[in-house]
């Protein structure tokens, strides 16, 4: 109880500190130095109408690379944590042969027919939409992450509707690795062909506002989108598999 009071007191103090922030906050009326530069120079320099994309992919490209890495390692980490090793199987007695049949048959009720049918109908569209989102990232709201997330939501659909469906680990791994690696390669090419690491101007900036413009941004977003999509799918897949253990 004392601890609870203590927590309450601490949070009250935190609230007081936050109040200090709020009380002294005034809304910006002009852009910050960085914002101003990006809004001013961004379109010319990089040829991307979507300033956020310009910032994300190029100006702060290293962040994005890091971000992709974060996602990659959290997927790897989840995989590592939820892996099935022989040792693990020994722990889980009653599941002598960790075969897929039991895993997938598991405790999940099969989805209703409506859901299955809807999924079959919607899935291609969802994936297509995801691709659209990341391919147009430099022009309109959206981008690699958003697109990837949409693709992963498609996977989610699939997993909900068809719990038995098998997602090829190999495919995921290859796509994941290759897209990530390609991203790095594109970044390195920036060093040789343009101003520096992750510079998008290794390719022609193209026509401002068209699909294949803004240098390598679409390319990068392609890789990012694929990578994010597949990684999120992999995470979902791993949680699903793990969840079928004995209860």
């Amino acid at each position, binding site marked *: 109880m004392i601890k609870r009071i203590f927590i309450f007191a601490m949070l009250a103090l935190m*609230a007081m500190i*936050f109040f200090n922030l709020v009380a002294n906050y005034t809304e910006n009326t002009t852009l910050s130095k960085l914002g101003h530069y990006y*809004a*001013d120079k961004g379109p010319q320099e990089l040829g991307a109408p979507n300033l*956020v994309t310009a910032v994300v992919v190029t100006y702060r490209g290293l962040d994005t690379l890091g971000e992709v890495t974060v996602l990659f390692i959290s997927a790897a980490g*989840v995989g590592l*944590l939820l892996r099935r090793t022989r040792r693990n199987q020994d722990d889980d007695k009653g599941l002598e042969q960790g075969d897929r049949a039991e895993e997938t048959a598991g405790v999940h009720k099969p989805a209703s027919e409506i859901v299955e049918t809807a999924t079959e109908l919607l899935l291609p569209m969802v994936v297509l939409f995801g691709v659209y989102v990341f391919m147009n990232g430099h022009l309109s709201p959206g981008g690699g992450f958003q697109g990837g997330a949409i693709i992963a939501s498609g996977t989610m659909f699939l997993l909900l509707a068809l719990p038995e469906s098998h997602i090829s680990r190999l495919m995921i791994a290859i796509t994941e690795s290759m897209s990530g690696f390609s991203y790095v390669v594109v970044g390195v090419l920036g060093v040789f062909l343009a101003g520096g690491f992750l510079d998008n101007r290794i390719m022609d900036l193209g026509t401002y506002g068209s699909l294949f413009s803004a240098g390598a941004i679409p390319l990068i977003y392609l890789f990012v989108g694929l990578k994010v999509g597949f990684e999120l799918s992999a995470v979902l897949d791993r*949680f699903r598999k793990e969840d079928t*253990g004995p209860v």
Partner: protein
Amino acid sequence: MNMLTDIPISLIVLCSGLGLILIGMWGMLTQRNIIRMIIGFSLMDTGIHMVMVSIGYVTGGTAPIINDAVPIADAVNRVVDPVPSALVLTAIVIGLGVTAVMLAFAVRIFKARNTLNIDECTESKW
């Protein structure tokens, strides 16, 4: 009515964000169930994202995408700061990554000890 409109929109988001942070912390500090703690974390994370977005707001600004509505020449005066938007994108992904790992931990902890109560995870101490 007047008062409400006088309050800048970003301030409302900021306050909500900070409030969400407090709620998230409350959840992390008081909820014994690990899953609930993770939810607390997510709340806190979301709160931070809201704060970030609110910081980037420029009075009367619009989305920083140059299109027909926002001509290049006038972009500087018309758009909100793109930087926090970019940052929040990154932050969201990172939050996601952490949440995923936390959940994976939760799964493993439950497997190993058959409980999700954080109070029972105190064997290493002093």
